[in-house]
């Protein structure tokens, strides 16, 4: 039916479609997208639906089998952990998106400026991102260590604190510690993306703004920011999506503690599956996750598909 829709490629080429042995454009298109679709269906959609289905059963990783329990798992999760876990997830996802964004933006502005050894520094600044994230998490775990970590040593020598602080076993500071570690790890790629964006700003636009008497701040808000709008959007969106998933840093540094203060959705799912070996409850968490995300997905699609209007 819709195969006959006018293709964006000029109608004169439709003659090619009638040649024997040649695929029609739409068939080609479907074949082209087949590998990607196949992988996504097989490796993400099918296992996901499977795990979510298990959310309606009472199934343990240890024993086989499993009895149908309907909404019992969902109820259990909603009554117990859902709100705190949701809260932690939002705090982490938003915090881990905004903090590196601001620091990365600052870094990109610096790296775009007249600093010495600029070429070298642009590469060197990527170092925190290139260290495997598991290692970076252990490194920060150790920096924050209450008994011999360098942060305590540093603050005590400056006289800021008189006694060692246990950063990772106090609720509020544990989340901040994890956010700081994640920020250190991620700000470099954001900086590079924004740096790339800064480099596409036409010099004459900047020049004419300066000539018109705009000071640095105005140049920033009227030339730089509008030009970077797309990159900023992409960076923020990608970060947010990835941070909803993020698991390793929290797992290594706090295992979701103290007293579940840093337990996000992914940590909760992992612990439910591997400590309690409760696949039913893990599946229920997954169902709730998907429901929440469908809200985000709709927003995401609006942004992601914005370019479509030019072509349809």
């Amino acid at each position, binding site marked *: 039916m*819709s195969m006959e829709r006018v*293709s*964006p490629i000029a109608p004169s080429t439709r003659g090619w479609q009638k040649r024997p042995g040649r695929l029609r454009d*739409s068939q080609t*298109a*479907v074949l082209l*997208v087949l*590998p*990607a*679709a196949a992988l*996504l269906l097989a*490796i993400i*959609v099918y*296992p996901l639906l499977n795990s979510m289905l298990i959310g309606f059963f009472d199934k343990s990783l240890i024993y086989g089998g499993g009895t149908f329990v309907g909404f019992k798992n969902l109820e259990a999760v909603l009554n117990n952990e859902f709100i705190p876990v949701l809260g932690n997830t939002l705090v982490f996802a938003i915090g881990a998106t905004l903090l590196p964004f601001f*620091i990365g933006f600052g*870094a990109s502005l610096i790296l775009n*400026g007249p600093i010495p050894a600029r*070429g070298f520094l*642009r*590469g*060197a600044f990527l*170092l925190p991102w*290139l260290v*495997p*994230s*598991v*290692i970076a998490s*252990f*490194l920060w775990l*150790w920096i924050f260590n209450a*008994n011999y970590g360098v942060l*305590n*040593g540093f603050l005590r*020598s400056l006289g800021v604190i008189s006694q060692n602080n246990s950063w990772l076993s106090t609720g509020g500071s544990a989340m901040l510690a994890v956010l700081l570690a994640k920020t*250190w790890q991620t700000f*470099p790629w954001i900086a590079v*993306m924004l740096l790339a*964006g*800064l*480099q*596409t*700003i036409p*010099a004459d636009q*900047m020049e004419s703004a300066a000539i018109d008497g705009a*000071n*640095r701040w105005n140049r920033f808000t009227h030339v730089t920011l509008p030009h*970077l709008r797309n*990159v900023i959007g992409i960076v923020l969106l*990608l970060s947010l*999506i*990835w941070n909803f*998933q993020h698991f390793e840093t929290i797992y290594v540094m706090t295992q979701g503690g103290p007293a579940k203060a840093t337990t996000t959705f992914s940590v909760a799912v992992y612990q439910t*599956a591997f400590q309690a070996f409760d696949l039913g409850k893990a*599946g229920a968490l997954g169902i709730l*996750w*998907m429901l929440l*995300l469908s809200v985000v*997905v709709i927003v995401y699609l609006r942004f*992601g598909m914005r370019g479509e209007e030019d*072509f349809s």
Partner: protein
Amino acid sequence: MKTTSGPWMATRASERALGRIGLYAALALAMFFAFFPIYWMLVTSLRPNSEVFAFPPSLLPQTLTLEHYANFIKNPQLLVYLGNSVLVATTTALVSLIISVYAAYSFSKFRYTGRRALMFLVLSAQMFPQALLLISLYLMFSELKMLDTYAVLVLSFTTFTLPLCIWMLKGYFDHIPTDLIEAAKIDGAGQMQIIHRILVPIVRPALVATGIFAFMRGWNDFIYALTLVGKSKQTLPPGLVLTYIGEFQSQWADMMAASLLVSLPLVIAFILFQRQIVSGLTAGAVKG
């Protein structure tokens, strides 16, 4: 159009001077934040074990030792992990690029039923909880007898990065004028020729940026590599944890030495190619 890659265009000398002081101060702060932990890794790797846990910690090592680096060299298993990581990450990048170029081209330049649904699938797939997938994937691969192969890692990581890669490349494809493609068709080119001879060369800078993200997914992942393959095919993250985090004690100094050594090639590569990388990103996802 000239693009900005040089100094800020400050109008007044005093503004310029103040700006420069501010810039250097900000630079110093940023460098401290970025590099002090790296410095700490370095310093720890050069200390003897007895000094590693002294409190208060000294900024400079009291005693210098290269024993931890020597230990790295003496442990051939670590090079196996490094080799595995490079293999898996590079293959992930290549396979991701191939598959996503085709898919992005399909989404960008064609119209067909199911296209919107597929795009929805692709875009939303990266939001699905990967922590939950681990067990189902493990059991699925176990039944297919695919565990402990490089393929299982490459397939998993590729699938996780596909949404990002397809999206980035599609954005770039969208900017390629269709006249180019039309002209090629008039000249008698088939689709594959169009893709390989015309589109890929244009898209090449974007491929660099996309490939890097795909590479990093394979490079960084811990939990899937730990679960899906055995020791001989382990990548660095689980391999390093396996080697240095024990039941009784963790060998921090050795771990720091090993981590620095394995990150070094990447750093050097990025420093050498930073210009191409940045311009690739410019060409790729960044076009306004």
